[in-house]
């Protein structure tokens, strides 16, 4: 495929110039913040210590655009990338990722073979190995909320009982699912309905009812901040960020688990990386029982049964894995189909 490869390789050459001489190092990329810190503590640093290989650990903000640019320019800067499953499906089928053989994965610390030890979702796509279960919930601030105790998604859309601003991430994903659920659609019918014109219209109509009370933000880091500074009384957030704020700063936040939309993050390897062996070695190490169990620091659920067994009982209730029955699994295939067209419709709706 002839993309603007001249331009890309030019840019790549410039960046390569800046990092020349480091090709022996492995570059791992993830989302930063508290999650990145937990990965550094439990995966990167122990790996460096155990093997002596150097690992550069960098941040990105998700999406597959940068991986695509590197693969198409034939100049791989990122060897191992933490990807959301919602993007994994697309990246893998477009040939941007290496297939990770299952037989190299180590058994759990209790001796159970990897394929049985991992939850099925964690190995569902051949290009990735699951790192965490994480989820999107909404949280409220007990000091600013009025009208009672919100407990369901419908309460998020009920501005009469619970007045005040609500903050959502500015994208159609999760918001449209929640709108339908709040409108009375059973969780297991949401994606089927959202594939139809009527379903989409119904979701936008439901969002319309709280339009004046909505605040939109761009990145997850803004969510706890909005809740704390009074910008909103309820915010949509990744569960780990709210958990971390409660734990570290004692914030008066409460998470509502009803109809949370959960997903996985995986380690994946960029196609054509010159450090393939090293990358596989790192993935093997980082998806072992002990490193995975460290993800409980940010209240993300481990993807191995043996790692789940090591979770501190005090934290268990804050993990998405403890609330799976109340949740909805984000449908990566649906969003690969409708992400772009609903993205356009969402933008149109915003402009109205």
């Amino acid at each position, binding site marked *: *495929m002839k993309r*603007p490869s001249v331009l890309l390789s030019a840019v790549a050459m410039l960046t390569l110039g800046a990092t020349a001489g480091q090709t022996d190092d492995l570059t791992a990329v993830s989302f930063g913040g508290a999650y990145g810190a937990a990965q550094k503590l439990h995966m990167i640093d122990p790996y460096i210590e155990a093997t002596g290989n150097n690992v550069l650990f960098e941040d990105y903000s998700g999406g597959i655009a940068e991986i695509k640019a590197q693969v198409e320019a034939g100049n791989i800067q990122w060897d191992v990338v933490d990807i959301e499953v919602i993007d994994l499906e697309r990246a893998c*089928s477009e*040939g941007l990722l290496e297939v990770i053989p299952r037989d190299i994965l180590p058994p759990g610390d209790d001796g159970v073979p990897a394929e049985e030890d991992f939850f099925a979702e964690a190995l569902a796509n051949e290009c990735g190995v699951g790192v965490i279960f994480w989820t999107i919930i909404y949280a409220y601030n007990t000091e600013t909320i009025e009208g009672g105790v919100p407990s369901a998604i419908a309460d998020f859309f009920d501005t009469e009982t619970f007045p005040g601003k609500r903050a959502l991430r500015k994208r159609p994903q999760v918001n449209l699912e929640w709108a339908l659920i709040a409108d009375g659609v059973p969780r297991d019918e949401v994606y089927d309905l959202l594939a139809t014109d009527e379903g989409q219209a119904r979701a936008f109509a439901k969002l319309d009812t709280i339009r004046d009370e909505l605040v939109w933000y761009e990145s997850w880091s803004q969510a706890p901040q909005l809740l704390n*500074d009074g910008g909103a009384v309820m915010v949509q957030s990744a569960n780990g960020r709210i958990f971390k704020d409660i734990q570290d700063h004692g914030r008066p936040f409460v998470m509502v688990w009803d109809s949370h939309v959960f997903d996985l993050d995986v380690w994946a390897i960029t196609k054509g990386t010159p450090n393939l062996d090293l990358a596989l070695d790192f993935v093997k190490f980082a998806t072992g029982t002990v490193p995975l169990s460290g993800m409980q620091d940010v209240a993300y659920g481990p993807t191995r049964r043996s790692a789940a067994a090591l979770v501190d009982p005090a934290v268990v209730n804050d993990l998405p894995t403890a609330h799976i029955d109340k949740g909805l699994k984000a449908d990566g295939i*649906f969003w690969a189909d409708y992400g772009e067209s609903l993205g*356009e*419709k969402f*933008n149109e709706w915003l402009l109205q």
Partner: protein
Amino acid sequence: MTAASLRDRTSQSGSTLTREEMAVATRALNRRRLTAFALVTPLLAFIGFAFVAPITTMLHQGVYNPTVAELIPDTLARLQDWDGRGTPDDSVLATMAVDLKRLANDRTAGKLAEELNRGLPGTSSVVKATARKLRNVADHDLPSVGAALLLEANDRWSSPELWRTVREAGKRYSERNFLTALDLERSPDGEIQRRESARIYIQLYVKTIKMALIITVLTFLLGYPLAYMMANSSSRVANTMLIFILLPFWTSLLVRTTSWIALLQTNGVINSLLMGIGITTQPIEMMYTEFATIVAMTHVLLPFMVLPLYSVMKGIDPSLMRASLSLGARPIPSFLRVYFPMTLSGLSAGGLLVFIISVGYYITPALVGGTDGQMISNVIAFHMQQSNNWELAAALGTLLLVVIVCLYWAYDRMVGAGNIKLG
């Protein structure tokens, strides 16, 4: 020496210059030209590399997309004879099955899926799931049972709409991204019509230009008196003021934008102040609005207006105003008819700078704009980073360029671009 003899000598010397002398002179001239050219070569190379090449690539990418044509050439060749109605015949379907199996094994079925999905949402999963199912079918079976397998995998393979999408996406050169960028599409009969689904881009262009105009006018209203004061005060005062203008200019854009968040947010400085002195009892919603975008961008872009104005005003002889006053003009008419026209060149430069920069602005609207503060650049970024539709992003970017060039042309016709002066 008389004029006549001089004329005589000149014409003589002109005609008596030997061929050799002329060659020497030409060589010397050429050498000088070459040296001059060599001196600017690095600059030209840089402009070509960093400016002309990327823009040309962008223009080209907006119309050229060979992905599908390269992925399924055989199917497209067979699809040529299809009349666009009903399901294409089995040979086409079987060829598609062969192509899909090859793509599934090369791990490129996702590329085809993404391209087709753009024309017809919902197609991505059809293509990927079918490709997965075909992966294990033996090659020699495919031509005979391929068509049946395709229909069995998903009945949408019988829909003419899907095949029209395949045929459309298979064109290497196509204007469809530009049509989308103008909220248009082709109907099944090939007529150009308004898009049935989301129509957002025209609205966004209009809004972007409107906001850029508002910001330009605001920087003028704020910047002109400021520049005038600076130009007409002692150099010590002027320098101090200049530093106050340049300091924010040197500060990181992100810092300036985030400090506006601190000022404008619901429980921010301004709201606390207003509530503290009792002007309002409820905090006013200023953050995440068009208002916030305009305020923050006016602040960020103010130096681009003040600096050219100041340098032009600095060069205006103060005695001209005094002369006009002493000749009996009243202050306001003499300002409007003597002073103001002389500052127009600086105003043109500042206005154009602010307008063009704000049309393409991205970070500030993304951070403080919320819902209504979105501009076209945010949507271009969306297509670059999230939907991965680089072709549409290229078309949108090209149109933005065209709009700016048109506006510049109109400006040149009305005001004249020749008088732009930066100092």
